[in-house]
């Protein structure tokens, strides 16, 4: 099996670690070798959370710059910041709903223009899928299900070596029962959005 390398970037509180844990569980369900590592960066205090997940036969749990096959960004400026993880063949999926850092509010930085951000990512990678995951999560009935929307998009592109059903099984094991229905709906909406 080819090794596939996935980077997920998010802001603390967006549910990146749960998404990673669902993917890890899905790989386990599907019998795919998987290893991952996470850097929290004081997640609960508004920092960046980065997960690296390596599927297939490899021992490393981290991914060097220029070596991600897929970049999944939960926040558009964070997707742009992580562009150095990509190469010309990388597929990028990003949420388009911004969460500007407080440095912008105190005048210590300018939030990038969202159209320019998409053009830049598009021009430097194989493919960009951009969707308003917050709107889709709300549509699914749970604004916190942004992570599940993006997982849906991630599975739709078909690069990872397991199926939507494997992920749904993992969601049943890993997410709270009370949210399962809205999570599954969010996943489907994200899947459809990526299918276009």
């Amino acid at each position, binding site marked *: 099996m080819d090794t596939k390398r996935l980077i997920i970037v998010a802001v*603390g509180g967006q549910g990146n670690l749960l998404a990673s844990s669902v993917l890890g569980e899905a790989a386990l369900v599907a019998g795919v070798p998987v290893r991952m590592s996470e850097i929290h960066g004081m997640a609960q205090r*508004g920092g960046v959370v980065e997960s690296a997940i390596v599927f297939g036969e490899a*021992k490393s749990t981290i991914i*060097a710059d220029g070596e991600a096959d897929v970049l999944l960004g939960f926040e558009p400026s964070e997707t742009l910041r992580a562009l150095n993880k990509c190469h*010309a063949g990388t597929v990028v999926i990003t949420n388009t709903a911004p969460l500007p850092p*407080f440095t912008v*509010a105190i005048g210590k930085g300018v939030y990038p223009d969202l159209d320019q951000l998409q053009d830049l990512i598009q021009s430097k990678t194989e493919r960009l899928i951009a969707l308003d995951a917050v709107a889709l999560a709300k549509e699914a009935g749970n604004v916190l299900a942004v992570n599940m929307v993006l997982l849906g998009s991630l599975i739709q592109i078909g690069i990872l070596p397991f199926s939507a059903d494997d992920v749904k099984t993992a969601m049943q094991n890993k997410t709270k029962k009370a949210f399962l229905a809205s999570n599954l709906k969010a996943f489907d909406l994200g899947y459809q959005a990526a299918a276009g």
Partner: protein
Amino acid sequence: MHKLLKQDIGEKMMLLGNEAIARGAIEAGLAFAATYPGTPSSELSLNLFQISQESDLYFEYSTNEKVALEVAAAAANSGVRSMAIMKHVGVNVAADALMTLAYVGVTGGMVVLSADDPFMFSSQNEQDNRYYAKLSGLPMMEPSSVEEAKEMVAKAFEVSEALNEPVILRTTTRINHSTAPVTLGEIKPRVTQGIFEKDPFSKVTVPAVSRNLHVKLLENIDKAKALAEKSEYNFIEGTGSGGIICNGVSYNYVADAVKDLNAAKNIKILRIGFSYPLPEQMIKNFLKDCDQVLIVEEGEPYMEEAVKAFAQEAGLMLPINGKKKDLFSRLYEYNPGIVRQNIATYFGIDSTPAAIPDMSDVPDVPMRPPNLCAGCSHRATFYAVKKAAEGLDTIYPTDIGCYTLGFLPPLSMADFLICMGSSVGTSCGFSKVNTNKVVSFIGDSTFFHSGIPGLVNAVFNNHNFTLVILDNGTTAMTGHQPHPGVNMDDFNLKDYKQVSIEKLVRAIGVEHVTLVKPYKVKKSIQAIKEALEYQGVSVIISEEMCTLYAKGLKRLKQRPFYISDKCTNHRECVNELACPAFFIEGTKVNIDADQCVGCAICAQICPENAILPVKAKA
């Protein structure tokens, strides 16, 4: 039941490195554990804390790492399998106990876990704790993966009991915080009660005893070396005249690189997992079979120096390199890309580095540093001290905890920090040789950890500064662990006492003690002003529960505020407090009602009284 107590032998579970180590310890019959929380080791302790609440495992959060090591050492000297868990810099705190425990040894198995943090993801330095093994003479083991970490704990206990001395298990962040499938093994029964057999002539380290104990320690190093020579954790892979010696996570990057470069027939790998004492003969034999050798190890040239010495003894002249300009660095952590490129360069293999996109036309993305939470009481205290100290030339020594984030603008309330507890000790020195007013900050847990001796020193030597103890009722930074000032009823746990910071400070002899509630801005500023004017040691205890913790305990009554039409855009709120609940919409400041907890600090400092409770609006 706790997931790490599952009896399903052979089942595969996705476990975080720290969970895998906890499971490994439980499988090995760990009966006693003590720690002071510190990233990247915190989840290991948290899991053991949880397990102790539903089993006969004894676990405690000790006041600091030295105490934790002593507590565990006593259990191990009574024949009970014990563990002391700490981050790398915690071993500095425990080092005094560790060095002589190495002389005394143990009767039950003891593992000292040192979680190192290359790149300093959450630490003040990236010291390489492998040198503690060399310094103490204690055996050391280092896993390369999550699965191996679990297995290695049991092995470390066996080695400890074979040699009657503690074993250091050294991890790095990328072990502790990686996740992988782990196969569950059998859980050995715990032996929780021990017998301490008196033997003062080998356990009371007066000089005459220690002279004998040092002889025993040196003999033990020879025995440990024999174990290292045949350890399954030191192994050779591949064939060829090129050689790589590596350890820990570097092994993963090396193995992946050798595979990617199709070099398994030209380069053989010696992976060192039992790394003190090093398997000298095994390394010499490996060197004899090689034309050139590359050492791949994050951190210091710990193996490189030893391997070069072995080569000299064996009369071998082959090139041995590792840390060198244009090769490996002593800085930060490695990654698969760095390792692959260096292997290719060193052994003359064609390889194209990964093509990173051209970032020259990408605009600067605004930084997203971690920030004090919305409603954090530390922000309120920093603001009040800043206002109270207006007009004074100040020096602000700070300490280790969430409040270290107060160093960021616009609060900018931190001038000096070296280690846990240093706020108090350094205040003594600063106030003696500077005319500035010294005001230092320390959290409640850090105060218990190592602030108290500094304060006793300050009172005795009659120093002149103000210490602000930020008491938010928990060890917030590492995930809300308890400390001696915490009411354990919050954890639904009985049989604990609570130590009052105020009584302690007064008992030390501090004559000017002020309690403030930082959400009351004017009152706090006034009280702090008085404390700052006091000549001598004054202490301010700023009491307000951590907002995140209060949320977790469901004690937070969130009543958000909003910015009304009265706002004329002074922006004192945003510019002085930088609370993450603020955001700018067009030119106007707004408050995110989901984030705002209603601390009302901004409402109290707004010059137009434009910030009002949402409830009142309705």
